[in-house]
């Protein structure tokens, strides 16, 4: 369940992300009434099982049951922000009816990670990088995107339009391409290549996390061609105050 839009007096139009049908829109009737049987099962960020009846324009949700409600995620503002951000990314990067099981799995795993004890920021960076991979925008981090040469162990440059990293000799001198420190490059590579069990053990300092966050956000904005609304909320409630400052510094680069 990605999001619900109010419809009429007591209905909601839901957007669901399903394992086999991708993004699906459906109407849930009467769910805003307190006695609705469905109401609590169709909140955003619920992993549930739903029975849809084919409708003329929109399908209608006739039954629903929660599989995971992620209660700990719901008790923390930072995790709520992260979960909604993940949902919004999926919402805007997918089309209705296009199956992408790995993406479904990634979203579900990410929500479970946000529901756990670990770092919200780490889970989101891992999500972003692998989301790009599943969508076909995997950033090229191993070689320079221009000369295809090996990247020297120094400060390189990260380009969203080029789809990856530029080495210092291919990087036009006075352009506004983002600098990418060696540590950030190594961290991104590690996230991209390793599974979560290994990635989750990585300790990333707040400044480094802010750098990676900025780079990935720029990359995502470039490919999505839109500003994400939930990032405002995430920056507001900030992952417990640590990495939030980095995000505000990076924002002027895109304008809004």
């Amino acid at each position: 369940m990605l999001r619900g839009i109010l419809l009429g007096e007591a209905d909601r139009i839901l957007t669901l992300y399903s394992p086999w049908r991708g993004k699906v829109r459906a109407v849930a009737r009467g769910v805003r009434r307190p006695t609705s049987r469905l109401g609590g099962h169709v909140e955003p960020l619920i992993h549930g099982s739903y029975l849809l009846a084919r409708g003329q324009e929109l399908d209608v949700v006739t039954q629903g049951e929660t599989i995971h409600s992620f209660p700990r995620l719901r008790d923390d503002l930072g995790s709520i922000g992260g979960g909604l951000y993940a949902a919004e990314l999926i919402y805007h990067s997918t089309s209705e009816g296009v199956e992408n099981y790995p993406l479904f799995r990634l979203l579900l795993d990410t929500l479970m990670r946000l529901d756990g004890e670990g770092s919200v920021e780490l889970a989101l960076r891992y999500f972003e990088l692998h989301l790009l991979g599943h969508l076909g925008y995997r950033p090229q981090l191993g070689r320079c995107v221009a000369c295809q040469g090996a990247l020297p162990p120094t400060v390189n440059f990260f380009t969203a339009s080029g789809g990856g990293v530029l080495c210092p000799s291919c990087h036009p001198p006075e352009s506004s391409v983002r600098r990418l420190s060696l540590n950030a490059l190594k961290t991104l590579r590690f996230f991209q290549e390793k599974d979560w069990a290994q990635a989750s053990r990585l300790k990333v300092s707040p400044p480094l996390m802010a750098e990676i966050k900025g780079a990935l956000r720029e990359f995502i904005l470039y490919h999505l061609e839109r500003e994400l609304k939930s990032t405002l909320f995430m920056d507001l409630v900030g992952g417990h105050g640590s990495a939030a400052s980095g995000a505000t510094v990076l924002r002027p680069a895109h304008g809004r």
Partner: protein
Amino acid sequence: MNNPVTTAAPVGRLIQEFHKLPGIGPKSAQRLTYYLLRAPVEEARSLAQAILDMKERVVLCSICQNVTDSDPCLICRRGDRDGGQICVVEEPLDILALERTGEYKGRYHVLHGVISPLSGIGPEALKVKELLARLRDGLVREVIMATNPNLEGEATAMYLQRLIAPLGIKVTRLARGLPVGGDLEYADEMTLARALQGRQEV
């Protein structure tokens, strides 16, 4: 909406205006328009005047932000309401619902919305500043969060709690549990868990 050339222009225009209202489809808009067309002119004038009065005379209460025709509003003016309790609601209609219970004797504060990350609505679009200003005089003992029990309402309550807690004021949340007339079998896990946590000795 298509406006057939056979309809007189003012009639077509009124149909369109009605059609803009929530819950009014093209057919209902036509029915309302033709009803008014046949009704005495006083009835039409009285309706038009009522709409204008509502728009021109109703303001937001400078204390609780509820809609009112006299500032401060009736509830804020009444001496028998406890000024030490403020119940925070999303919309003015929520006050009506709470007042129907007859249980609450404190005052209210209307946020006029809820923090909605997916719609990009942040606290700056709500009456949060006004709420914090009311808490500064030190008379308020308790703030009751009566936002809706959904993700956005919860997030708003948590956010406000974070802002208010440093002021040393008690912040409470409406209990969440089973609705009267509901069915245990169909309750979702979250509601049931809250109902269990908040159970009371009978």
